[in-house]
């Protein structure tokens, strides 16, 4: 391994590019091309570096848990460090971020025409924050990146969005802030607890893992963390910010929001909420799973009746993210691996869907399904791309959505089959809403004359959707390429959890939860 601080470079590079852009005089928009070029170039370079990260990552089970570790004291008085490092799970999510950002920037060519400089700078800043979230091993540092992420996203929606962008941006902000404040309290509390036990302030994640948190505190800490993450996922019933945010966000914002940002929530569950508070997590797992299966069915049913394509895709995300939470709640190797895999797959498929919907709305300046129909005749290539991405989203075997979904179902079935019986309905419903939308938009006769003269995919749009389609197929055919690197990390997490029993809160535990948890333990044998 070279001594290069690759993770720091990955965070600094987009920030640096964003900073440089601020010096470009682009008041009249004359240098839009240059600005876009710099943004794309920087994000492509980041992507190449993330691949370098992958190439240098040792996926063997005996390798160090966290690699590419960098550590510098930041605020020594409170034991806060600038502490970075990745395992297989964060590696893949960083690669996903690197993969999707240039694609999102490319979609901006058609959909963003004002304040291009600021837009690109915000996108790059967002990328830096996302990589920071995935790479942080210091809980406080994580929280800084986590909250920092909100700022560019808030402006991306609020400035470059559609008609109701202000409402959507504030709603997004309030929802997420509500969660993160509670999480901050829990983080501080956790560190304080560490201090009372060991006499040392620390936010070092690994040291906190080792801390035995008393049951009654675990209960509250877990709820605070889980709420912040559940809002981000978003898990039913904290999901109503998502449709508004998506509908109002510009296409690149939606791509990143669906592709990466939502995964912060599920990543947080895996990295923090579960391993930090194992007993509480196991105790609440049935509740999480219940909300997850509700989200799966509920999101799909509501998606079905949406007249707006973006809203439909947004609700489909609620449904798909429910699968991910279910896999995490199962907390066995297949469940968690499936969940992480589904995070990647959903990023590709839903990112692709938002990109495609964006292409249609760039052409017609509407996202209403009823404004389309018969597009296959005028844009066969866009239709073909849509079919591939749609089938990936629906979970057709051979494409990426299936692998994650099936692994999650295997994991959850081994844990508690009842959830899978409900979750499986998502398999039917996703086909219903997707195919129905597809039929109304692309099949039949052309019902609106304006659609007759619309162009098929442009070269730039090819560059957006081509890689996404290719990735959907590659991930479906050779999933082991992606499953292998994360396996040691997932196994470690599951083993860490297996040392703990679900806690009992002074006899208040409802008996139903214990019944559900008991066979779960047997199934893990």
């Amino acid at each position, binding site marked *: 391994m070279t001594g290069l601080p690759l993770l720091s470079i990955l965070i600094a590079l987009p920030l640096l590019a964003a900073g440089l852009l601020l010096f470009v005089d682009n008041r009249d928009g004359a240098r839009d091309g240059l600005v876009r070029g710099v943004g794309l170039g920087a994000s492509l370079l980041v992507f190449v570096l993330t691949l370098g990260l992958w190439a240098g990552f040792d996926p063997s089970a005996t390798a160090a848990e966290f690699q590419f570790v960098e550590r510098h004291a930041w605020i020594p008085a409170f034991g806060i460090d600038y502490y970075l490092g990745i395992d297989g799970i964060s590696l893949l999510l960083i690669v996903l971020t690197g993969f999707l950002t240039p694609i999102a920037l490319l979609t901006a060519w058609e959909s963003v025409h004002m304040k291009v400089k600021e837009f690109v700078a915000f996108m790059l800043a967002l990328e830096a924050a996302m990589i920071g979230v995935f790479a942080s091993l210091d809980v406080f540092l994580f929280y800084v990146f986590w909250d920092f992420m909100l700022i560019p996203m808030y402006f991306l929606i609020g400035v470059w969005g559609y008609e109701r962008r202000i409402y959507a941006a*504030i*709603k997004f902000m*309030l*929802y997420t802030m509500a969660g993160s*404040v509670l999480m*901050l*309290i829990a983080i*501080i*509390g956790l560190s*304080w607890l560490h201090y009372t036990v060991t006499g040392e302030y620390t936010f070092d994640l690994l040291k906190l893992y080792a801390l035995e948190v008393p049951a009654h505190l675990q209960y509250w800490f877990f709820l605070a963390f889980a709420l912040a993450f559940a809002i981000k996922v978003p898990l039913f*019933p904290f*999901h*109503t*910010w998502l*449709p508004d945010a998506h509908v109002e966000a510009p296409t690149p914002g939606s791509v990143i929001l669906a592709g990466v940002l939502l995964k912060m929530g599920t990543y947080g569950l895996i990295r923090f909420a579960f391993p930090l508070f194992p007993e509480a997590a196991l105790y609440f797992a049935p509740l999480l799973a219940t909300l997850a299966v509700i989200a799966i069915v*509920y999101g799909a*049913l*509501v998606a*079905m*009746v*949406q007249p707006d394509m973006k809203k439909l895709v947004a609700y489909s995300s609620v449904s798909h993210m429910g699968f991910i939470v279910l896999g995490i709640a199962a907390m*066995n*190797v*297949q469940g968690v*691996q499936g969940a992480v895999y589904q995070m990647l797959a959903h990023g590709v498929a839903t990112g692709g869907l938002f990109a495609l919907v964006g292409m249609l709305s760039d052409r017609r300046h509407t996202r209403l399904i009823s404004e389309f129909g*018969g597009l296959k*005749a005028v844009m066969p290539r866009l239709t073909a791309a849509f079919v591939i991405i749609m089938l990936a989203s629906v979970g*057709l*075997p*051979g494409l990426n959505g*299936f*692998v994650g979904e*099936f*692994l999650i*179902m*295997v994991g959850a*079935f*081994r844990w508690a*089959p009842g959830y*899978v*019986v409900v979750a*499986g*309905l998502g*398999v*039917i419903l996703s*086909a*219903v809403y997707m*195919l*129905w939308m597809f*039929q109304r938009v*692309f*099949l*039949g*006769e052309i019902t609106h004359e304006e659609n007759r003269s619309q162009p098929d995919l442009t070269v730039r749009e090819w560059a957006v959707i081509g890689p996404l389609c290719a990735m959907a197929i590659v991930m479906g055919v*050779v*999933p*082991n390429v992606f*499953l*292998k690197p994360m*396996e040691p990390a997932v196994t470690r997490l599951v083993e860490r959890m297996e040392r703990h029993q679900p806690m009992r809160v002074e006899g208040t535990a409802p008996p139903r939860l214990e019944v559900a948890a008991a066979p779960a333990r047997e199934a893990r044998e």
Partner: protein
Amino acid sequence: MLSLIPLLPFAGFLVNASMGRRLPKAASGGLASAVMVASFLVAVQQVWALAALPAGERALSQTVFTWIASGDFVIDLTFRLDPLSAVMILVITGIGSLIHIYSTAYMHEETGSEFARYFSYLNLFVFFMLLLVLGSNFLVMFVGWEGVGLCSYLLIGFYYTKKAAGDASKKAFIVNRIGDYAFILGTLLALVTFGTLDFQQIAGQVAAMPPEVTFGTFSLITLLLFIGATGKSAQIPLYTWLPDAMEGPTPVSALIHAATMVTAGVYMIGRNAVLFEAAPLTLTIVAVVGALTAIFAGTIAIAQNDIKRVLAYSTVSQLGYMFLAMGVGAFGAGIFHLFTHAFFKALLFLGSGAVIHALHHEQDIRHMGGLKAKLPVTYWTFLIGSIAIAGVPPLAGFFSKDEVLFYTFYNGHQLLWVVGVITSLLTATYMFRLVFLTFHGEYRGPQSAQGAQRAHGAHGAAAEHSGHSEHSVHDAPPAMAVVLILLAIGSAVVGFLGVPHALGGHNQFGEWLHPSFVAPAAHGMAEAASAADEASKIALERLLMAISVLVALAGIALAFGVWVRRPEIADRAAAQFPGVHRLLLNKYYVDEAYDAAVVQPIHRLSQDGLWRAMDVKVVDGAVNAAGQAVGGLSAVLRLVQTGSVRSYAASTFLGAVVILGYFLWR
């Protein structure tokens, strides 16, 4: 070598999908057909190699790579060729080749890019179908299972500007997904029960355990799998998509919706024969559902006027026979009927395609008639197919259907045997109604007053456009005629592969298949039956055979009497029992019932209940109310808003500490 069989059609798909629209039609159609023939030849060679092995050891396998590995859950992409999959790959590649060749002529009106699109889908279908039958475990089978469903979706909706085609394709996919839901659950339950999804390992484990007397895990697994099969193979209650699937091009109906894909459910049961045999309760359900579907679809077929819909309901009915056979434990008989049915039903569909082609997209048999002289090749081949399906000896359908019915009776399901025999009467009747109305009597198409009037009706557009008249009617072009003749020969002779002992044969077909239906350890164990038992069995079989032949002939005579000799009888019967007629014509209103009982309520619930009430009013209402409360506060709070990020951060932190402090000191 084994992997070459599916890879060849896949290569054809890749070429036609990527550059097909730039190729001349002859090249794209020719390529698609060539890869099929090549795949067939490889299949023959592989089956030949398989046959050279001793009976008990007939299995070839090839692991391509490890597909999914997660902890102890490891799924290899492994192909396994055994006697059962051998039969299937020969049907798929053999009949598939013929249908590709037929299609090059049938689809000639399409533009180059549509032509290439058609063949790319068709090749892709064959690829997935081969994956389905060659896969050595449930998950690889499921890849094929869903893949063929996708291709079926794409091909049913091939004429995508037609709303009916779009609706039908969507319905097919969704109804199949309902079945797939159960199939997935069955697969998962099998996985946790056996710790593996490999067919052979599961069979080995099951064979070591006693069969279930009551409803247990095996019964649940098999029942869930069977529900999956009712979707794919169009059985009650999930059969409704298949008749609508006739919106696709006719060769597609022949290949996918008659000969291959719809038989996947039957194959799946055969593949897991040991498991199903350990769950006698499920088997009984399979038999009853099969028999009910057979008779139910048979009655509908009698009243339909669209030539393809009659054949579609006939397919549903014949698939019912196959499930009946599987359900009574006569796996060999079920697969035998699958095999013969592939020939004569493909023939009948392609024959109907020739009729439709000749009449420029006319599908209503009320506007046909008298085509015997104009379409001699089509007529004679169609007649052979009809005789075969009716079960008249010595054509193929006779042997297979008879074996099914005999084992139904012999294994103690006399009531189901009665249902089967009545269905056999219906089969002969509706098929010969079709033959007589299409080919005999007077031509009733346009040129008559009735036709001119109809030209403005539903089917009018196509007819008017091409201006078809009696004179432009022409028999099948060579590529189609050759295929019809080959399939007619097949329909006439393939039954001889399974001549029963009762007729002095050795049922080679059943013997060939037998090792696939028993656990690996039990190979070579033949049931020892005493000579006396054997003699009484043969006598019974001969008696039942005579009955079903008489019934088939009676059905043909009935059709002749009603639709040739006294056409007014049919009208009078319809007038006398208007309720019954309407019920049959409207297919028992099952689609309407499903719509009212399932589709509409779910839609209303989602729209008004979940979205507009729950999401917008309850959840968002709460959020907005909270927002407004904050808004009111913020008039005061504006005083402390400094606009500095640092002070925000500080106050966030401070607030957090305060709340935390409360919890810690409380």
